[in-house]
């Protein structure tokens, strides 16, 4: 039993995962630009890696709230899409500067120029600022209102989902001015590189992988500080923490805004890789799926989120090509398996395997007396 608990604070998979990500960061230009003759990846392949990295970022954003503070958002697609739309606005402005052709959806609305509020998106640095600040601001307002009214648990989850759904309905409307159900597409270049080309794919994949590394390492370091312990305390017993003199509203709000910003950055990196954004990213099913990735990988500590996002999405890419009708059943089976056998996802496998073996050799039932990190 003490053997199991010894690992409760750290994840044994963290080192290998960070190592693999570093390897990926080095390998993506090497394989993408065919530095070694005869050994390389297609643009599609490099792109896929980049997209999966964006999902890993999104999963970590969710885990920061769910795994650490016990607050489950079923609406992180909102921030992901928000970042994506802002990124698309920058790409459209860039394309316009080169082609002087206004995007279709604006022409259909009878516009002869970009609306005035698009002006900051002509600048790359202002766009980056907007991608961080605007979703952060939205998260702050929504989080402040919810946490102040002490909306917790499943009620909070439902509200986040409703918010995403509302945003989806809003963005589906052409009058909203962001392309309606067709969304925004027709991107030309990013950082001077043609979108759809190998160089852009390598750049975006490297950026996404680097972002995953920064959030994973930085986030884990943050969770090891007193702030991280405060979040754990909120998860275990928020009222107790409040009665110790901590205004938990601000602690949750800080983590929530950080989480939203990470999700927005993920979306902003994702959109140029897929070349389009439309309101389907705001569909609640994506937001729920993110929770599945994290649950499969293992909550808390961010490492499980990366593993879960990578494994489930790789499986999804492969299966939806090989056997698209079977995929939903496989996903459902995966969820059941995790709930029944590995309550804390795949991280259980790595964190507890040694202790399980130790217990097995003593003849105990594995997992019977384990104290779970997460309820």
């Amino acid at each position, binding site marked *: *039993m003490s053997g199991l*608990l010894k690992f*409760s604070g750290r994840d044994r998979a963290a080192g290998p995962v960070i190592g693999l990500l570093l390897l990926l960061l080095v390998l993506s230009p090497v394989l993408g630009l065919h530095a070694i003759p005869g050994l390389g990846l297609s643009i599609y392949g490099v792109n896929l890696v980049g997209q999966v990295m964006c999902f890993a970022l999104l999963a970590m954003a969710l885990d920061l709230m769910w795994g650490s503070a016990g607050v489950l958002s079923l609406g992180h697609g909102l921030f992901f899409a928000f970042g994506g739309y802002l990124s698309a606005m920058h790409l459209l402005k860039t394309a316009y500067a080169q082609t002087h052709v206004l995007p279709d959806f604006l022409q259909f609305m009878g516009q002869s120029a970009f609306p005035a509020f698009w002006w900051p998106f002509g600048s790359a640095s202002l766009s980056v600022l907007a991608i961080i600040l605007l979703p952060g601001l939205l998260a702050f307002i929504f989080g402040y209102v919810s946490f102040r009214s002490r909306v917790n648990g499943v009620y909070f989850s439902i509200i986040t989902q409703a918010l995403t759904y509302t945003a989806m309905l809003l963005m589906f409307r052409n009058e909203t001015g962001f392309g309606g159900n067709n969304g925004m597409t027709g991107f030309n270049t990013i950082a001077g590189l043609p979108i759809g080309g190998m160089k852009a794919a390598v750049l975006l994949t490297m950026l996404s992988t680097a972002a995953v590394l920064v959030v994973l390492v930085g986030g884990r370091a943050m969770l090891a*500080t*007193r*702030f991280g*312990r*405060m979040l*754990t*305390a909120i*998860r*275990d*017993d928020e*009222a*107790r*923490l*409040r*009665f*110790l*003199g*901590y*205004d938990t509203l*601000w*602690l949750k709000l800080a983590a929530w805004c950080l989480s939203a910003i990470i999700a927005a950055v993920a979306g902003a990196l994702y959109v140029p890789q897929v070349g389009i954004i439309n309101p389907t990213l705001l569909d609640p099913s994506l937001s729920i799926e993110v929770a599945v990735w994290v649950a499969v990988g293992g909550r808390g500590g961010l490492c499980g989120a990366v593993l879960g996002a990578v494994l489930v999405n790789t499986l999804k890419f492969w299966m939806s090509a090989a056997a698209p009708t079977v995929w939903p059943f496989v996903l459902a089976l995966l969820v059941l398996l995790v709930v029944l056998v590995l309550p804390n996802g795949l991280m259980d496998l790595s964190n507890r395997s040694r202790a399980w073996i130790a217990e097995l050799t003593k003849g105990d039932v594995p997992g019977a007396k384990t*104290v779970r*990190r*997460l309820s």
Partner: protein
Amino acid sequence: MSQVEKNALSVKGLIVQFGSFTAINNLTFNASYGHVHAVIGPNGAGKTTLLDIFTGRSRARSGSVLLDGKLELTHLSEVKLALSGIGRKFQKPSVFEALTVTENLDLAFRRADRSLLKEVFARSDQARRDAVDGILQIIGLGAQRHAPAGILSHGQKQWLEIGMVLVRQPKVVLLDEPVAGMSDEETEQTAKLVRSLRSPERAIIVVEHDMDFVEQIADLVTVLDQGATLFEGDMKAARTDPRVLDVYIGR
């Protein structure tokens, strides 16, 4: 109670209602420094509600609760009340199970003169470590200091939570059924612990059902019934008081 004793908490004309139910009815109550004050009474007498008022969990309809005779507590938030020197141990042991014993105490060491932001970035300085070590001694969990609180026994969790309340040096310590669910031996140890906490800088209020425990620890006993004081005095007198006997046995 003599007039020279300093009141930590003075409750006057307190009324608490939940819908049409009156939980506390025009209560007057004082808790003074240096004393262990036990509050007993049948179920529904308003004992826990009284602690809820002191900690901001419930709101008073009218009346006043003063700390040190000057600070009005009835309108303060839970956080402000905690920071102004009120510490509470809950009925159900409430510790942070995923954190170690030391980490629990370290978080509980919340200095009132620091903003939350400063507390987030506070370093583990010597004063902090000494305070935590001191409490570990008092509650006798030194050997478990690096164990996650989740694996502690029920009694140890209760002691840890008492330690978490004490580490901030609160003026008023509220203990809600500290020996509920404890073995006789643990109860005995808890009694010793509570007696040792008596200090001129501290008022201790204990809500408890275990009468033998109360007799061991209490300097003064208040018997509540239907939200009002039925009896006040020492435990021996309480046990022979006909009104007290009536509410406990008469129904």
